[in-house]
């Protein structure tokens, strides 16, 4: 304030003596018109002057002015209607602001700028970070579930900090990435996992490094007019994350938040007991023997002649009744602990503002021994130098530690293989007391006591910028940004675990990965209104970006004992190194125009040059054009009171995609690493081999998107409705196209596929009740997307057993199965659909049956406040997606896997005698009942409705807290995943075994998402 006062004193001689006489204080307070609470940080402007003031933390303002009464005040504050009042008093002024019920007046961050929502042409969802930050998933990406229309988000596992499936307006690509571009404070950050070790097919999420508590707001850019300014990386949408920055001229505000709670799996699997398992296996042998006799299969007759579960004295495993049941699941699953601490200070002087934040989070998974913790430090600072120059910096430092384990596919070290897939009748220890291992799985106790796999991610994300106002309304900005991630992984399998057991004698891996992205960006922007009617904005800019990723890994085996854990102690050591680099040079521009806040038009273009593509196709051009019409401003609607806002929007443009493909995908390459000896004594000598076919024509994947939208505000904006219809069409899709194997290669990088996505989004925000004591707001969104592979020369299958098939004319993530029609009640045999009617079931009868893509999805959130209490109830839902239950596939093997796999309780529903009506066929090794693997019987409906978050808070009345020196004290309870309605037979349909992007909805060996409750307190000083 001091500087402001001084500047007024300097200006004093300019005023006449009479004015000098009037130059005394104007003071007052700005409050919420309904709740009567003061509004700190509101801008008070005296009309027709250059005088501005910000209210302090008590909502008060002060002016020294020479203006004559009456004075017209213009008061603005985010979330409130701008108000203009003319008053005849100098002190004791009270101006009430009316809250805007919808987001129409919000400031929305768009690419390289901001817009008021009412002036927005493009389709952008804004998510208020405050509403989601208490959901105990590590990453902000997972917290967004159900909050933004058109954005499908699924956490695929209960492991905190693991990868999240996110699709904005559908999947546009098969081999290039489908994840959105993440921009944090102007920095394009890496969101591809750096994981190299195996955790059973899953991958960690780099987004989980970011502390959600530092986030101010999140914008999701969806249509082409919003994303084309990001050119070759815009096709999958853009998530812009803005962190907190403090406010000019506010006192330091210290905030401390802590919460603690528990996480556990609400449902586990229903398994057979030992005696049941034995009884089923004996039945399987009986039936198989009969079938072997019928088929005259001598080997089979011999094999199945004796029941395995017969008295030990007869050489059997004991009778079924003698079998014990060993519960391994409850040894593995636990109630995990959650701890969360965040401390921040923010504020500013009239010329600068700052935010300092520190946080620590620890989250244990619902299975042992997995946990995640993250420490973070945040420093944002902006300094005005004179009136024309602003410099500033954003800095985030994160350390994410993950205690990892294999929860997913693969037998060795697999926690759920050991706990879930081991038959229940088998004891944990051998007769001699040593830990028992079965079916290629590790012993669970050994795993739980000896797991030693962890990852530390150290990450810095930051930038430095300077902004200069060259002439009024013309601004130049330059920035340098860095995203640096050091990812340190280590695995140690001692000699008790299967991987490290003799003869390996301990197996250790250490991998260090560094990912560095630096960005330099310049923009020149001009924004001015002429004659109060024509507003013109111009933006031009360029970006240079370089990314280098390198990994150095070492592996050792043959350790002297379990006390030695470092590779330097290993007898056998191998090392490997990877290095890759990509550069991107871009130029972009945007022109926007609006006439009287009524007609809006915008054109943008970006040219991106990428080192990934051949010289002929290095540059791609991505234009977009959009227009909007605010009908409310027209004469015929101006006085129609029930309609407070009506706007039509439309846009069309082209965006690109180049993510996820190899940096050198276009090149014909020969690789080293194919060494072989020249003779029997010399050992390996270096060797080379053709690695990859060249495709000099490799180029961008392009997505054309058209969007039409409608924004409607009713009843003084108490009801806000936003509707969008879109159509995306991707051409030149980047595809690892299979090439016939006789060429010596398997695939090559090509631009072949075409994919379409069409969909709708509806978002409705209502302020149902708002008075001084009670408020109730509802946000609802629903979206549907139809995905179709329009062109794909050769179908592509994924995952072992080819569960997933991408084929022209079908949706992505489709399952490829044999359709089991029914189980014949007379014979007990499964009857499969003979698609080509040739009388036998062959590969030709496998068909595409449903997809992991939902028909529609969305969320509904209700927020209530009553005096000091607040209650938030958020549901998310998804309908029509399919999940293939691979756990059941293994657990209902009908006895074919005998002692190698558990039998699920559902196996007891098998056909036993003529007349039985069931879909679980007769147990036998013969025929198709259990040997035709890709059986549609295990394809299940994955629809769900989930109470994703329930928060109840109580803010202690100010009269109590202020006595203790606190501004606010809020106590709260948060629960997540408290209710899950589903048809799916497994614990959670929101699940996937792998991070392979084209494989979705496969449930195998993955920890289900936890149910959590937390208690917390939030104190502001």
């Amino acid at each position: 304030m001091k500087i402001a006062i001084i500047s007024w004193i300097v200006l004093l001689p300019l005023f006449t003596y009479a004015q000098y006489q009037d130059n005394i204080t104007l003071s007052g307070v700005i409050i919420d018109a309904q709740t009567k609470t003061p509004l700190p940080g509101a801008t008070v402007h005296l009309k027709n002057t250059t005088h501005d003031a910000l209210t302090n933390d008590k909502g008060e303002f002060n002016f020294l002015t020479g203006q004559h009464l009456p004075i017209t005040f213009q008061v603005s504050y985010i979330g409130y209607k701008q108000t203009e009042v003319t008053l005849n008093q100098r002190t004791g002024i009270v101006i009430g602001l009316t809250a805007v019920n919808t987001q129409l007046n919000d400031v929305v961050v768009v690419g390289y700028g901001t817009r008021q929502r009412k002036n927005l042409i493009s389709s952008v969802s804004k998510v208020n970070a405050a509403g989601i930050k208490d959901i105990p998933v590590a990453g902000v990406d997972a917290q967004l579930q159900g909050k933004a229309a058109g954005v499908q988000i699924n956490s695929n596992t209960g492991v905190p900090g693991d990868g999240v499936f996110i699709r904005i307006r559908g999947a546009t690509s098969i081999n290039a990435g489908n994840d959105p571009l993440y921009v944090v404070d102007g920095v394009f950050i890496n969101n591809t996992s750096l994981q190299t070790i195996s955790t059973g097919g899953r991958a960690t999420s780099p987004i989980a490094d970011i502390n959600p508590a530092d986030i101010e707001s999140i914008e999701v850019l969806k249509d082409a007019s919003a994303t084309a300014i990001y050119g070759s990386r815009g096709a999958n949408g853009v998530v812009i994350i803005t962190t907190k920055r403090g406010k000019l001229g506010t006192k330091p505000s210290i905030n401390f938040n802590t919460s603690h709670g528990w996480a556990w799996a609400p449902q586990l699997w229903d398994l057979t007991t030992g005696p049941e398992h034995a009884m089923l296996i004996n039945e399987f042998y009986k039936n198989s023997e009969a079938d072997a006799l019928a088929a005259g299969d001598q080997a089979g007759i011999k094999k199945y002649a004796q029941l395995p579960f017969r008295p030990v004295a007869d050489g059997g495993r004991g009778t079924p009744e003698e079998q014990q049941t060993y519960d391994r699941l409850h040894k593995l699953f636990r109630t995990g602990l959650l701890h969360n601490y965040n401390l921040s200070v923010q504020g500013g002087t009239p010329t600068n503002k700052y935010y300092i934040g520190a946080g620590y989070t620890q989250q244990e998974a619902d299975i042992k021994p997995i946990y995640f913790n993250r420490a973070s430090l945040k420093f944002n600072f902006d300094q005005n130098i004179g009136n024309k120059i602003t410099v500033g910096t954003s800095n985030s430092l994160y350390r994410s530690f993950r205690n990892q384990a294999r929860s997913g596919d693969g037998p060795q070290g697999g926690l759920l293989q050991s706990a879930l897939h081991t038959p229940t009748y088998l004891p944990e220890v051998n007769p001699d007391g040593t830990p028992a291992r079965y079916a290629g799985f590790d012993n669970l106790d050994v795993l739980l006591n000896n797991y030693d796999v962890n990852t530390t991610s150290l990450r810095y994300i930051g930038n430095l910028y300077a902004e200069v106002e060259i002439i009024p309304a013309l601004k130049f900005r330059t920035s340098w940004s860095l995203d640096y991630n050091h990812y340190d992984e280590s695995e140690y399998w001692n000699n008790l675990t299967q991987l490290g057991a003799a003869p390996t004698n301990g197996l250790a891996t250490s991998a260090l990965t560094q990912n560095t992205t630096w960005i330099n960006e310049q923009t020149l922007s001009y924004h001015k209104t002429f004659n109060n009617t024509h507003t013109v904005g111009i933006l031009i800019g360029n970006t240079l970006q370089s990314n280098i990723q390198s990994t150095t890994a070492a592996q050792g085996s043959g350790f002297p004992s379990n006390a030695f854990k470092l590779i330097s102690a290993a007898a056998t050591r191998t090392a490997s190194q990877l290095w890759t680099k990509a550069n991107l040079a871009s130029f972009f521009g945007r022109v926007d125009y609006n006439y009287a806040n009524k007609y809006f038009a915008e054109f943008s273009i970006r040219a991106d040059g990428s080192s990934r593509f051949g010289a002929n196709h290095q540059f791609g051009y991505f234009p977009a054009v959009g227009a909007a019409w605010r009908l409310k401003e027209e004469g015929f609607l101006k006085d129609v009171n029930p309609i407070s806002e009506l706007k039509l929007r439309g846009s069309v443009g082209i965006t690109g995609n180049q993510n996820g493909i190899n940096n050198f995908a276009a090149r014909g390459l020969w690789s080293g690493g194919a060494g072989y000896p020249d003779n029997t004594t010399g050992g390996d000598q270096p060797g080379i081999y053709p690695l990859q076919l060249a495709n000099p024509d490799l180029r961008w994947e392009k997505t054309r998107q058209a969007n039409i939208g409608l924004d409607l505000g009713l009843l003084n904006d108490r009801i806000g409705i936003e509707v969008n219809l879109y159509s995306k069409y991707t051409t030149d899709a980047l595809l690892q196209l299979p090439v016939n194997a006789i060429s010596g290669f398997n695939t090559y990088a090509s631009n072949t596929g075409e994919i379409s996505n069409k969909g709708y989004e509806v978002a409705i925000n209502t302020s149902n009740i708002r008075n001084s004591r009670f408020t109730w707001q509802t946000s609802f969104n629903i979206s549907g997307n139809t995905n179709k592979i329009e062109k794909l020369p050769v179908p592509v299958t994924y995952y072992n057993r080819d569960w997933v098939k991408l084929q022209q004319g079908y949706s992505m993530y489709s399952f490829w199965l044999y359709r089991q029609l029914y189980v014949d009640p007379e014979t007990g045999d499964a009857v499969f659909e003979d698609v080509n009617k040739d009388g036998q079931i062959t590969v030709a009868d496998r068909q595409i049956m449903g997809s992991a893509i939902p028909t529609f999805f969305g969320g509904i959130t209700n927020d209530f406040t009553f005096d000091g209490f607040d209650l938030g109830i958020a549901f998310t839902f998804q309908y029509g997606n399919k999940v293939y239950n691979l756990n059941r596939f293994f657990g209902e093997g009908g006895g074919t896997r005998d002692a190698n796999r558990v039998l699920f309780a559902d196996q007891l529903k098998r056909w036993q005698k003529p007349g039985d009506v069931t879909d679980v066929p007769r147990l036998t090794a013969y025929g198709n009942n259990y040997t035709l693997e890709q059986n549609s019987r295990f394809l299940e409906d994955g629809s769900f409705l989930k109470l994703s978050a329930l928060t109840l808070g109580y803010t202690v009345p100010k009269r109590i807290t202020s006595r203790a020196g606190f501004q606010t004290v809020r106590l709260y309870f948060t629960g997540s995943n408290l209710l899950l309605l589903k048809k799916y037979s497994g614990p959670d349909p929101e699940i996937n075994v792998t991070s392979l992007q084209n494989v979705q909805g496969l449930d195998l060996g993955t920890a289900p998402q936890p149910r959590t409750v937390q208690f917390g307190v939030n104190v502001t000083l």
Partner: protein
Amino acid sequence: MQIHKYILPYLAAVLLLSCKKFLDVQPQDAIADDAGVITDKSSAETAVRGLYRALSDNAYYGSTFVTLGYLCGDNIVWTGSQSVIQQFISHNIRADNANVASAWSGIYATINRANYIIDKVQAVTDPLLTQDLKNQFLGEAYFTRALCYFDLARTWGGVQITLTPTTTPDDKYGIKRSTAAQTYDQVLSDLVAADSLLPATTNRFRATRKTVWALRARYHLYRQQWADAENYAGKVIADSANYKLVQPYSAFFANNATATSESVLELSYSTTYTNNHRNYWQPPANGGTRQWAPNDALLALVNDPAIGGNRSSLVAKTAAGLWYGNLYYRSPATDPAYTIRIAELWLIRAEARAQRNDLAGAISDLNAVRARAGVAPTEAATQANLLLAIENERRLEFAFEGHRWFDLVRTGRAAAVLGITDPNKLLLPVPAAEVLNDPDLEQNPGY
């Protein structure tokens, strides 16, 4: 304005040039083949080593192809969870079997590497690359290609023949399948070429002229050209200074032995290039998965001192009483691929002699192998009994090497021994994905 005239174009040029340079990023772990890769001695010799690494890849002789040979026989029981394995054992192989696809593409990848060498090495003008070296490299490539087409022919019948390196993705479309006879003719033509190019040295890890003779012996056996088979087998056996039946049987593999005199061609592995075999065979107690194991029938034979003799060292038993195959056991997994052993040449000559009614010669050859295994001389006296005795000897001698299935198919005994009544099943299905991808590739009948 004058300044702008010069400065602006200059700035634009600098910008464009620096942009071009900025966007030119080269890989460091691979080289671009824009200007050709095999250009001098060093690149030629490294490419030949890369060829052997393809031959020894896990898709081919490393494990997958070899497993086809024994899993389809009658020695193995499936004990794992992957039912693609069960398809082999029950002779009910589906066209989408992933292991079949893996072997198919592994073999053709090897052919492509051989084609590169055959196409490029002759034209290299590097004084260090002498004509002798060129001949050696070319001969090794011809030998390897011969082995590839031989393996393709005996597994799938006539296949598509490609003799040039692949440089573009559509290079190898439009090729029809050759007949089995044409494919075998290609094998012979490559073997003849290799014979003329390679020196008659001894190198157990790589092909020499003597390795060519050994493969020719096998080739002529498969083609039932008994005289040639006897002749070529005899040429290798005659080199007894370098190739002999090591005593006892286990000496060629036990105690981490490599490159014993038993081996005519043995592919080499190291901690960098490991071999998947042990992982499938060894029980979990030894860090394996025991996807399959010797079946009761084989165990009875191999553990019978009168039949298996000291070949019982092929199997072992865990503390828990589980039998497992122990030919591939090393840790790290560096078990060699025993591609051609001298025992095979003895048995080839025995069979060829028996077929030519040289029963005494046949008996003596067979007994050489039996004696090494520590079992009594054969009692077979008639031609028919002798042939059966040789077949049974091969079953045990190569129990976990990739011979049994191909032996039963080539002798027409698959129906009698394995109970395969559908003759279409004697050839494996062409991988379904390949048939789908290549309109000129026809599926084998019955799949």
